[in-house]
């Protein structure tokens, strides 16, 4: 691979380079997607490759009770899997992290990279969507916060301008008493891409008789990971009964617009959405 390669330790200088090269530059943190893409010739060799792995300001996974979790751009997927606080407060996030690649890949790949690659099948994203996470985008012109729900425009397409990079993901604390679940269907149990990924966040009212919060997000069944808001309304305010959960699952399956590809047919994916939405909803609701 021949390209201009930069590895700086200063964020400001990196932003300057990014402004200079714009869309002719690619950022590399963990590198587990871009290097595979270049090797398999599905990604063009960029004119300029900028490694951000040595910018210490971007490191760090922080949790504070009131404000929630901050995932710095260099935080490895493996850190989400093993962090005691993530496992306790955001168990579905730790669970989704564990389904990505192998241990070796999770020790290299970053959570922010998983988000910024904008794969429709990215495992962390459905969980981050139900947790209503946002990203901080920084460029030479300043910084802005983008809700994750508005971040994805299509496969490999995000709302970032070519001059911006994501420095962190913010994940608010889940509502008191809420439970989350992530379920993934893939052919192999390890080292496989999701055919379908489903994340649910649910909470019952204080009498445990009605569903007060219910959030649903789907991966790998549309051009981007999606928050299934239209479906959520079906169960809100209702008792957490089997029939209602089945209606939600059916509606989610109808909402999904998967493609047929080498891993699965669209029809199969729709059927799996139904099954996983049912199972994930039950897990999130029954454990309340």
């Amino acid at each position: 691979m021949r390209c201009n390669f930069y590895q700086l330790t200063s964020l400001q200088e990196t932003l300057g380079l990014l402004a200079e090269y714009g869309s002719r530059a690619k950022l590399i943190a963990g590198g587990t997607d871009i290097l595979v893409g270049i090797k398999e010739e599905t990604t063009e060799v960029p004119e300029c490759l900028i490694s951000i792995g040595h910018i210490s300001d971007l490191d760090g996974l922080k949790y504070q009770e009131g404000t929630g979790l901050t995932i710095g751009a260099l935080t490895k997927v493996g850190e989400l899997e093993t962090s005691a606080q993530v496992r306790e407060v955001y168990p579905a996030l730790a669970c989704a992290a564990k389904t990505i690649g192998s241990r070796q890949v999770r020790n290299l790949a970053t959570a922010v990279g998983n988000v910024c690659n904008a794969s429709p099948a990215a495992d962390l994203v459905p969980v981050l969507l139900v947790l209503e996470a946002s990203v901080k985008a920084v460029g030479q012109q300043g910084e802005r916060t983008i809700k994750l729900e508005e971040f994805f425009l299509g496969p490999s397409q995000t709302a970032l301008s070519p001059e911006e990079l994501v420095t962190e993901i913010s994940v608010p604390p889940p509502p008191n008493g809420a439970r989350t679940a992530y379920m993934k269907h893939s052919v192999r149990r390890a080292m496989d891409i999701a055919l379908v990924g489903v994340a649910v966040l649910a909470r019952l009212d204080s009498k445990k008789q009605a569903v007060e919060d219910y959030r649903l997000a789907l991966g790998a069944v549309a051009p981007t990971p999606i928050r299934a808001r239209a479906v959520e309304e079906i169960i809100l305010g209702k008792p957490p009964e089997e029939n209602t959960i089945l209606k939600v699952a059916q509606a989610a399956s109808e909402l999904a617009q998967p493609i047929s590809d080498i891993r699965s047919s669209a029809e199969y994916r729709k059927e799996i959405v139904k099954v996983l939405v049912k199972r994930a909803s039950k897990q999130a609701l029954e454990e309340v």
Partner: protein
Amino acid sequence: MKQVFTLNVNGETYEVLAEPTEPLVKVIRFRVGLTGTKEGCGTGDCGACTILLDGKPVTSCLMLVAQAQGKQITTIEGVAQNGQLHPLQQAFIDHGAVQCGFCTPGMILSAKALLDETPHPREQEVREAIAGNLCRCTGYVKIVSAILAAADNLP
């Protein structure tokens, strides 16, 4: 343009001349000259190129040499100490866990990372730790029993 990189491999410092975008596995094999680390798929799927980076297993085919600067690299050549095989290496021999041998360096490094953190793992933990290491001779049973036996022999 080639640059000089300073790498710490198995406790020794090596200065190598390489393109910054060369995969670390190639630099370890052909510029440092330690060929125990194998390159299989080159896309992070097979785990043959597994090394330890600051003690954690990573696929060295998915790293550029520039990214490894300032980190401690352990390859299979650094596992035996003072001419004594590591208990894992001895257990692989004793349990017939080596067939063609191509996956063995990566298997042992993934297993070492596990035992360094979890000296007495359950079988499920062993299987999860080597989920990213493929053996195409398909002898996982003996590999798993070798790792469990090595764990039993640890203090």
